[in-house]
């Protein structure tokens, strides 16, 4: 079974880019445009990995991460922050909010799959 990856991202181009790369590497992608939608989708679909943008409308990525982590059903799903916030402490803030990984934008398409592979235990068996 294909791993399901939920992308929470408001920027269309970024959403398209990530979805394209993941699809091309054989991953099933769920798309959410804001945090609220993302949490609902996560509850409904129980994805294997969540890629979370930090700058989101209405509810920022830190809050989304904290909400996801506070829900016992979603607690174990790895969350990787994919963000253009590159200032000091941004990584720490993301980790504190409950993220399992942190990828700085712009992403490197050549290494992106390697970077998230660690959070997808089944991927190696699948390929």
């Amino acid at each position: 079974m294909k791993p399901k990856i939920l992308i929470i991202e408001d920027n269309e181009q970024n959403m398209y880019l990530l979805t394209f790369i993941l699809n091309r590497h054989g991953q099933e992608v769920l798309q959410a445009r804001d945090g609220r939608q993302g949490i609902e989708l996560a509850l409904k679909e129980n994805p294997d990995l969540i890629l979370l943008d930090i700058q989101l409308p209405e509810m920022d990525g830190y809050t989304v991460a904290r909400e996801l982590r506070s829900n016992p059903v979603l607690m174990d799903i790895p969350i990787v922050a994919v963000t253009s916030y590159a200032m000091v402490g941004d990584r720490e803030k993301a980790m504190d909010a409950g993220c399992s990984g942190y990828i700085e934008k712009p992403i490197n398409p050549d290494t992106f799959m390697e970077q998230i592979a660690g959070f997808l235990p089944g991927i190696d068996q699948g390929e």
Partner: protein
Amino acid sequence: MLQSSREFPHPVPVTMKLKWKLLVLFGVVSLAITATLGILLYHQLREDRFQSIRLNTLEQLRHIAFSVRVFFDEVENDVRALAQNETVCTKKDTGFTNFTAADERTFQYRIGSVEQKIIDIFNAYRITHPYVNSVYMGRANGSFVRSHSRERPTRYDPRTRPWYRQAEQSAGGVVITEPYSSLTTKDVNIGVVKALVDSVDHVYGVVGADITLANLTDYILHFRIGPASRILIVDRTGTVLASWTSDLLFSKIGDYSKELAQVLQGGHQVEESVVIEGAHHHVFSREIEGVGWKLAVLIPVDAIEREIRLPVMLTTGGLVLGLLFLSALGLMGLNAFIIRPLDHLSEETALIARTSDLSRQVHISSKDEIGMLGTSFNEMIAALNATQKALRETEQNLIRHQEHLEELVKERTEELAEARDKAQEADRLKSAFLASMSHELRTPLNSIIGFTGILLQGLAGPVNEEQVKQLTMVRNSSQHLLQLINEVLDISKIEAGELKLSPDWFNLTQAVESVEKLVRPLADKKGLPIRVDPVPADADRLFHDRRRVEQVLINLVNNAVKFTEQGEVHVRCERLGDEVVVSVRDTGIGIKAEDMGSLFETFRQIETGLTRRYEGTGLGLSISRRLVELMGGRIMAQSDGPGRGSVFTFTLPWKREKTDETQNSDH
């Protein structure tokens, strides 16, 4: 004020003390003067008196000696005259009275006319010369004629008598005999005798006159010589012929005082100090010429001193009284002219000192030194007053200035606080701006880099060679842009002090390897070898922020590759003492000497002559320097000049790793 009155004792005792001091001073001075003058006067008087007595005594002695001499000369002349008297010197003396066989009980005077004439002459002479006791004549036939009858007509032979023999022996002149006791009376006499000599020098008789020495004593005693002076005459044998005391008469002077006897044996005129009967005496003696007697005056030293005691005492007493009078006058004068004005002045000054009232002035009553003192004091007080006023003004000014200063400081502090707040706000805005910029720039870059990557990977379908080349350019440009953004961000962080290091133990070998791996593609493209020397074991373990060490190394190796066309890039690590030294050597374009100084400054890329041939922000070295310094090391560059390559070296502090530190990291 209490303090000041304690410091300055009350003035009255001071002036009292002054009076007493003056009194004591006067007393001491008076005593000293009196004592000195008294002693000097005493000595001087004694000396003067002694000299006066001495001179007087000598004069008198001379006078007495002369008188005695003259007296004897007279007697001698008289005796000579008698001896030459025709009646007296008759040779027909057979009938003259003769006592050679006389018997007191039966003797009868039978006096012839010639003899009677002689007796008359003798008697006349005796009567007219009261000092002459008797006048007499002895003859070679033993007869003896005298001016007056003998009291007792005892047997008597003149030829056996000393006076006759002495005259006989010196027949030519008058002889003065030794004193001798009269046979008939108690008198002691001396005879002045002259031999009667015939034409063939035969002595046929002796004429003489006796002088009683009692009369001589009377004669010399009527001379007043000196205080308590004692006068005496001794003959050649030391027999006292005349004396102030009858006890000594005709005794030997040696029995009375041997010292005196010795003195009297001296020369013509002698002065000597002699102790007689336990008392000091001045002795003056003089020889009476002719008779060879010694005339002496004894003056007790005590007597002289007794005599001068009174004048000395009178003078000293007068002096003391005079000095006391002068002292009293002086004290009164001092009291009137100095002590009382001083007293007054000190009371007034003490009052000023007590009250600290500098507006007061002391009263000036005279134009003398004390008046000047008062004037000076007034001037000093005035000066003090002025100084105090000036001080008070200065103090008030100071207080005013202080208040003003406090206000100023308050204002400035407020302004500074405002400025600080503004600066902090500006800083915060800058950080926010940078964060926002970074974010905003990254978002479009994400698309550019992402999609270029996808296209190049062929994920969206095949691309031809030309398209790959162009897409690669897009990717490289966008990656360069990303690098620029990152470096600007780094500089901002460093300058804001926000860049935090996360030191931990790591292996330098691994760091160097990963850097080499990263830069290798660029070098390969140029066909440039990167030679990495194995990291020595003692330099391998480092406690630093590995990401930042790598960042510096990437920058240096990247630059080396970028600026080198031929040759090689050589990376070498070693440990020197407490430092690990990493050097990156290249054989590239090198650095001009004038560019060395600005090499590590922000936004510098060395002008190469080929515009923008070498890509880069110019921030790399600046960031590297700041990072190295942040880690406690140094960075430096060396070059032998353009075209000769360059060496970039940085150092990092090294410390020995402890085993337990590797196990529990302190973060």
